[in-house]
């Protein structure tokens, strides 16, 4: 079966010459939840941006088998729902309703279909009734969920979450995890919250210096002391008791 998203020997250097991605090759299959971990500067966010065609490097990004190029970027992009690390970057409209409606409107949905998409997106993040609120009156947890709703409303094939659990209190984090767990679509989670990855992910990739350093079952990889240390990571607390 064709992977939903695929990187083939992808390379990207920032304008100042820093190599962010250096031959990244990996695949994401339909319906699976994959974690991307790695030290700061390993290229996690860069890879995610490249997946949406926001960066143009060398090599290929394929979305449902089609190679991403300049011409089809805006077409293929709508299959990917990208939730930014900072919800203040993602929520740019005056009200929650307008923010969630922004995507569907750009897909040229009819007014009633836009309203329906907003309603069901808010329902799926359990924030029904928040339509007329302003983003600056929301808590961080609520903002994160609204940010998720803004991409869910576009009915994406792949959901990309960049550090979804940062800055959340344990309760909001729990809410977000159950929410992600309930999603049926292909989900890519990047970040440093290894405990969350253990819970959510079918598979994890460890990125280091712009390429995949290891790939496999989260529990197996995260309990490998040598591997974790090599990649400036740490065995999660919940796994530590078993390994000692």
């Amino acid at each position, binding site marked *: 079966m064709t992977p939903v998203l695929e990187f083939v020997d992808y390379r990207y250097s920032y304008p100042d010459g820093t190599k962010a991605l250096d031959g990244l090759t990996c695949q994401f299959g339909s319906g699976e939840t994959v974690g991307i971990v790695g030290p700061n500067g390993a290229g996690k966010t860069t890879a995610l*941006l490249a997946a*949406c065609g*926001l960066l143009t490097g060398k090599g290929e990004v394929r979305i449902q088998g089609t190679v991403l190029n*300049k011409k089809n*970027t*805006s077409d293929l*992009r*709508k299959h*990917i729902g*990208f939730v*930014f690390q*900072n919800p*203040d*970057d*993602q*929520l*740019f*409209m*005056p*009200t929650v309703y*307008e923010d969630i409606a*922004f*995507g569907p409107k*750009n*897909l040229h949905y009819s007014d009633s279909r836009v309203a329906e998409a907003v309603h069901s997106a808010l329902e799926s993040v359990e924030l029904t009734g928040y339509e*007329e609120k*302003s*983003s*600056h*009156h929301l808590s961080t947890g609520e903002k994160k969920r609204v940010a998720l709703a*803004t*991409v869910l409303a*576009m009915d994406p094939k792949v959901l990309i979450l960049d550090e979804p659990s940062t800055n959340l209190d344990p309760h909001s984090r729990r809410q977000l995890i159950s929410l992600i767990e309930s999603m049926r679509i292909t989900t890519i989670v990047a970040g440093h919250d290894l405990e969350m990855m253990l819970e959510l992910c079918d598979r994890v990739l460890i990125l280091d210096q712009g390429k995949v350093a290891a790939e496999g079952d989260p529990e197996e990889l995260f309990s490998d002391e040598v591997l974790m240390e090599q990649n400036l990571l740490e065995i999660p607390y919940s796994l530590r008791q078993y390994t000692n």
Partner: protein
Amino acid sequence: MRHSFFDKYSELDTPIHRMNPKIKLAIFLFFLVLVSFLKIHLIFFLIALGLLSVLFAIARIPFVFIVKRIAVIMPFLIFIIIFIPLFQDNTWAVAGLTFARALLSIMALVLFISTTRFPQLLKELESIGVPKMIVEILSFIYRYFFVLVGELERMELAVKARAPGKKHRLLYKGFSSMLGMLIIHSYERSERVYQAMQLRGYDDGRDEE
């Protein structure tokens, strides 16, 4: 952090808040025209002032809030007023008239803005034919004003935390670099926001080369 400055009282539920925003906008504009073209006698001024006060009372906007809002615009007004006697013949009468007109207009503006929710206001502006781009710019100002203020407050706190006991005036030395930092942060943020917009299908034509 939660902020509310100019929209502090816009969520109240009074007859004036509930009023159809289109009608409210129409009355507001009509009032502005009236004030700008009529020769204002003292009695007319007092009646208008009384009327506005009653409306403020109905809308339950606190007096201090109104004074603060007016005070923001006052310096500009006073600057203009003091120059009028220098260029006009019948000096103080003109200056007084201009002042009365401006004060009434500002008060009406404060009343209108503080009783209308900003997103609603934007919709009305769009519906009366204000160009989409202007409405979009205003909407971004509204959204990111609060983010910027939060950022500025955090920076100020960081400065204070590392300069205990320093006099306020000394802190202002760091103000210019703080402002520079804020501009750089905003620039970077604007790039990320634009990316977020692109990802949700926004197309301003820049993509097509």
